[in-house]
């Protein structure tokens, strides 16, 4: 069969177009890319490592269960380090180069606030675990929270303070959106309960010595101290409180009670310490909780924390949404927005109009002489 040059060129063009079409069709059937901007280095990596591990575990589990209607998911990670600027850059890099169908953002509210306008611009759903209420109040319909908001945590801490019989509570908080927001909510709740705070002291993210703040609260007569902290400074605060001979009970926000923080302190530092945790993670609960904890320990050699569990639950919610409505951003967003009573391992998730999916947490108390905690009560705030 003889070809003219013109026929040959036409055939070559047709073959090229066909291969492009086939490629596009293959790409449609290929991996579903999911972006994850996580603090993997720097001081915030203390908890960031947990989300990284949990999302990797979720990726394996989703794919082992057949993926998303036969397509595998692939998580692409970018490091947010400890700055808002890096968090924005990490997100921009993913959105421009990888173009994922879904995002998981950092659990640090200041980073979430910085990234929020970019998420809105590209209009792809994203889950985050930052607690600050101001993130949800921003009205970004593409953001979905997988942890209790700080108002829920503050309510839990106030409940713990009440259980301790606080008459003159004091508050110590990290000076950022999370700390200030949580402290102000707690102060209002305490005032409403008839026990207004005797003092509120702040510290900076890079501070390493808290004696001035703690002694100031003690001199004001605080009989219980509520702390809104990050993991590393939370651990240091608990340690320095004991070094300063502080005797009053301390109620801490969840970050000081994650395994990453607990490895830095001794059982003595936890004497008289209560707090809230997003989810009470006890293998004794059995079922999926036991399975998650044991598999996580086996895979990464450390105990999982509730923040990581929130991301794991979030990834499974995302997978179910994709299975039901596909990867179209709008359809997926709308599916998430109407999600009610979805039973995760850590929580039962129901999204409200502001994208808050978790409305409960646990109040815990350190068991004397150990670094383990007993459940005092769970609380739900709607």
């Amino acid at each position, binding site marked *: 069969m003889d070809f003219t040059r013109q026929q040959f060129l036409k055939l070559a063009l047709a073959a090229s177009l066909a291969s492009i079409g086939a490629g596009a069709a293959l790409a449609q059937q290929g991996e579903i890319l999911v972006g994850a901007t996580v603090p*993997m*280095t*720097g*001081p915030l*990596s*203390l908890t960031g*490592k947990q989300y990284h591990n949990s999302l990797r575990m979720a990726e394996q589990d989703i794919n082992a269960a057949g993926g998303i209607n036969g397509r595998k998911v692939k998580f692409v990670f970018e490091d947010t380090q*400890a700055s808002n600027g890096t968090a924005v850059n990490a997100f921009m890099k993913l959105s421009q180069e990888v173009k994922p169908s879904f995002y998981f953002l950092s659990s640090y509210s200041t980073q979430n606030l910085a990234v929020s306008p970019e998420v809105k611009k590209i209009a792809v759903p994203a889950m985050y675990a930052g607690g600050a209420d101001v993130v949800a109040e921003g009205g970004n319909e593409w953001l979905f929270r997988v942890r209790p908001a700080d108002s829920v945590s503050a309510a839990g801490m106030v409940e713990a303070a009440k259980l301790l019989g606080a008459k003159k509570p004091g508050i110590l908080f990290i*000076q950022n959106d999370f700390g200030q927001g949580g402290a102000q909510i707690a102060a209002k709740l305490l005032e409403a309960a008839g026990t207004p705070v005797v003092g509120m*002291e*702040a*510290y*900076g993210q*890079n*501070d*390493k*010595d808290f*004696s*001035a*703040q703690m*002694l*100031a609260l*003690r*001199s004001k007569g605080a009989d219980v101290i509520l702390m809104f902290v990050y993991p*590393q400074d939370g*651990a*240091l605060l608990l340690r320095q409180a004991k*070094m*300063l*001979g502080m005797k009053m009970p301390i109620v801490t926000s969840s970050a000081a009670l994650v395994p*990453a923080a607990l*490895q*830095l*302190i001794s059982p*003595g530092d936890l004497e008289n310490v209560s707090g809230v945790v997003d989810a009470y993670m006890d293998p004794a609960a059995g079922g999926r909780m036991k399975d998650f904890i044991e598999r996580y320990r086996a895979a990464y050699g450390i105990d999982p924390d509730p923040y990581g569990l929130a991301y794991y639950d979030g990834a499974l919610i995302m997978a179910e949404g994709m299975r039901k409505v596909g990867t179209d951003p709008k359809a997926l967003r709308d599916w998430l927005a109407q999600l009610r009573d979805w039973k995760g391992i850590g929580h039962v998730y129901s999204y409200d109009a502001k994208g808050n999916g978790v409305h409960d947490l646990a109040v815990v108390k350190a068991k004397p002489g150990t670094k383990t905690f007993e459940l005092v009560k769970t609380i739900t705030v709607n």
Partner: protein
Amino acid sequence: MADFIQLFVNGLALGSVYALAALGFVIVYSATGVVNFAAGQFVMLGTFSGVAMMVNLGLPWPIGYGAALLAMVAFGMLFFTLVYLPLRASPVVTVIIGTVAVGIILQNAALLGFGSWPFRLTSPLEGVTLDIAGAVITAHAALTVVVTAVLVGLIWLLFYRTALGIGMRAVAQDMEAARLMGLNVNLLLALTWVLAAVLAGIAGLLLGPMWFADVNMGDPIALKAFAATIIGGFGSLPGAIAGGLIVGLTELLGASYISSAYKDLIAFVVMILFLLVRPQGVFGERIQDRG
């Protein structure tokens, strides 16, 4: 009163660490004209030397502290040989940029070597407290103040009572004249860097039990040591001590009696006030260039 005593001693302990870091700053600056922007990372390296010896290798503390300081001696020599010596003939700004680069390298090397999770470095006096007029003082804080005081005394003896120290001061004043007088300038400069590294190492070992060992801990230390040096007088040894103590005390007393929200601001406002009112610092001398 008890709270004041507690704050005062804690401020002194923190100020002592700043003072040691500032001393390293001043010794290097006086001898070489170089502002060591890696001073904070030198301190971080000191803490992590302790972590490596006592936490990772499990050495008992007397041996662990000694080994950590020996590591800092080796680091000082290495820094002199690999960074300062090759750059010495270049303009001083090149050496300063070299210290910035070394600071970044040290921080990232520590990150690669130890990871981003902090370590707990315990004190030999862990859990021991002193009761002074109702104030609970940790023995470690008291030890920090005492160690600094002893070191300051030793450094004074070195610089003013030994031939070696007098030689180092001579190099600091006029390197060429010192060379012409037959002094081994290279050896004396190497000793200067080793001394700065060892002081930073001691500061790091004292700081470890007060904070956690964290690869990012160098930055706040460097900032405070720099403020201490400005307040005390750039180039002045007594100034470094006074400046360190002023910053430490201002930080804690200011946070307690003025506002904890502006803790760092208060310390740096004091520094700016010094720059405006007494730019030569507490112990510095006014130097004017003639036009």
